[in-house]
């Protein structure tokens, strides 16, 4: 009887569930074609980019910079620009098989410095990530934990990294550890703070929704808190990478025996000026690459954001 009634109620009603008139929500094509579609899309985008003003403007930007350098230093040598290494001199030195000052693309010393700096950065950065992200997550998650540890954290955070140099040298006996420690410290604070902000940025309704769908606290942590904080965490990692390079160079200038910061500083004291520029440009390029890698990983982990922006 009850079933009959139910049937009577369900049967006539409106025709199947109608759409609400929205656009852009048609189901996508079946899988087999997807690869081909992606390739086409990539080609299309590449062509669009090449024919858009962007690559052109980028080239103009670089040309203007290099041209300006060449003109001011090599050709005119006006004001104090005359004292700087010129474009031609730097490029010649950098690409020379037998560089006048000992460091070029063809010397192993160049790569030793790069490798030493890179290793320090990676050690420090991953340590900062491994400690900073969990700390930030727990600071955001537990009010009690935040109340007793955040004030201490906030007291240490504003201390400029350079102020840590003497202590770092006293604390660690070796040459390597103080530099890594300084690099770590800067990256750690940036990572932890942004992770904390990320947790606090999560809309409370997501947590409520998760709880009333039957999650335990641990499940809410894993399924809501961590993914919800991820955008901020990646912003934090970008910042962390930036300050890590900053502190690394500072540390290497003070305490290193190798590394790009050491190369720049020692080239200065031994008046190998073109080598300073080589070190600087190398830092710029590696710094840019490291940021790009973080961005790439972030996009990989947060597909939903990339899609929302598309």
């Amino acid at each position, binding site marked *: 009887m009850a079933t009959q009634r139910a049937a009577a*109620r369900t049967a006539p009603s409106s025709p199947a569930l*109608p759409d609400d008139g929205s656009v852009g929500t048609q189901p996508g094509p079946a899988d087999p074609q997807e690869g081909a579609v992606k390739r086409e899309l990539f080609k299309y985008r590449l062509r669009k980019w090449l024919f858009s003003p962007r690559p052109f403007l980028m080239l103009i930007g670089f040309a203007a910079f290099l041209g300006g350098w060449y003109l001011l230093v090599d050709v005119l040598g006006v004001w104090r620009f005359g004292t700087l290494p010129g474009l031609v001199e730097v490029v010649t030195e950098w690409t020379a098989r037998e560089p006048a000052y000992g460091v070029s693309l063809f010397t192993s010393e160049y790569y030793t410095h790069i490798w030493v700096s890179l290793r320090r950065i990676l050690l420090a950065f991953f340590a900062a990530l491994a400690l900073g992200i969990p700390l930030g997550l727990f600071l955001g998650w537990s009010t009690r934990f935040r109340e007793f540890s955040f004030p201490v954290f906030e007291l240490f955070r504003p201390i400029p990294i350079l102020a840590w140099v003497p202590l770092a040298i006293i604390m660690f006996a070796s040459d390597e550890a103080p530099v890594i420690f300084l690099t770590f410290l800067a990256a750690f604070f940036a990572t932890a703070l942004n992770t904390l902000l990320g947790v606090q940025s999560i809309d409370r309704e997501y947590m409520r929704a998760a709880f009333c769908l039957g999650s335990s606290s641990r499940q809410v942590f894993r399924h809501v808190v961590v993914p919800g904080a991820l955008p901020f965490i990646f912003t934090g990692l970008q910042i962390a990478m930036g300050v890590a390079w900053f502190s690394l160079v500072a540390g290497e200038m003070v305490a290193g025996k190798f590394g790009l910061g050491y190369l720049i500083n020692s080239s200065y004291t031994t008046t190998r000026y073109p080598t300073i520029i080589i070190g600087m440009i190398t830092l710029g390029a590696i710094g840019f690459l490291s940021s790009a890698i973080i961005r790439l990983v972030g996009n990989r982990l947060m597909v939903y954001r990339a899609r929302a922006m598309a």
Partner: protein
Amino acid sequence: MARPVAQAAADEARAGDGQARPAEVGKGELRVEHVSKVYDPEGAAFVAVDDASMHIAPGELRVIVGPSGCGKSTFLNAIAGFHSISSGEIWLDDELLCGPNKPQAKPGADRVVVFQHNALFPWKTVLDNVTYGPIVQERLSKKEARDLGRERMEQAGLAGLEDRYPSELSSGMQRRVEIVRALVNDPKVLLLDEPFRGMDSLTKSVMHESLLEIFDKNKVTVMFITHDIDEAVFLGDKVSVMSTRPGRIKETIEVDIPRPRDYRVLTSPRFRELMAGIHGEVEIEARKAFEAGEREMA
């Protein structure tokens, strides 16, 4: 009949109301007894809900209307277990959710909430959202949950959207996905807090019809909160008017318009009559709230 006792009791639960959705007995009877909620009891002691009582029969679709700020969300959040109550008792079937010795109910999948703002997890695909409940509760295996999720999505006209992310859906579809995500848990009560607020009226009316259809396929008690009287009368088996400052269930009106209902109901004389009655009640409350606001300003 397989379960004569249950059947008889179920019929009794629907006595005098030929329209309540069929529900198994003992499933989803919500009783709220003299519940009060005081915010900040030590300080401002703001009484948001005062001595509210309500009884929703199993399978009933109850709508609660009242002007903004009258305490509807406070009331619903107490049932959901998002905050404590100051006095009274809330029962779901034979279980005391909260009462004198247990001020706050534990949120759980027997009372799933659909929120006013989209609360789908943006970082999960639509299907992962829908299957979230059964999987975290370990009620179903991953595969079973996905099969069930697909099936329910198809029933709700959402087939083909499984691998999308919520942000790629229109707001109407997001709402529907969220309702499906709730119903996949077979909750005893579904709590909806102004789920269609801010939608244009055309989308809204489509949502109403699709909502009724989804509910017809699921035996579930519903508590639906709104400040829109059209919506209340169109959807509800019964409509309760909530008074303002402090919130209290002032009056409950039975909507004796036969189901299934479609948009043509909106122009029927009975609909207009019920609307007018409820509108009168709500307007009195809105006016009171407005005047109280004026006094506070002065």
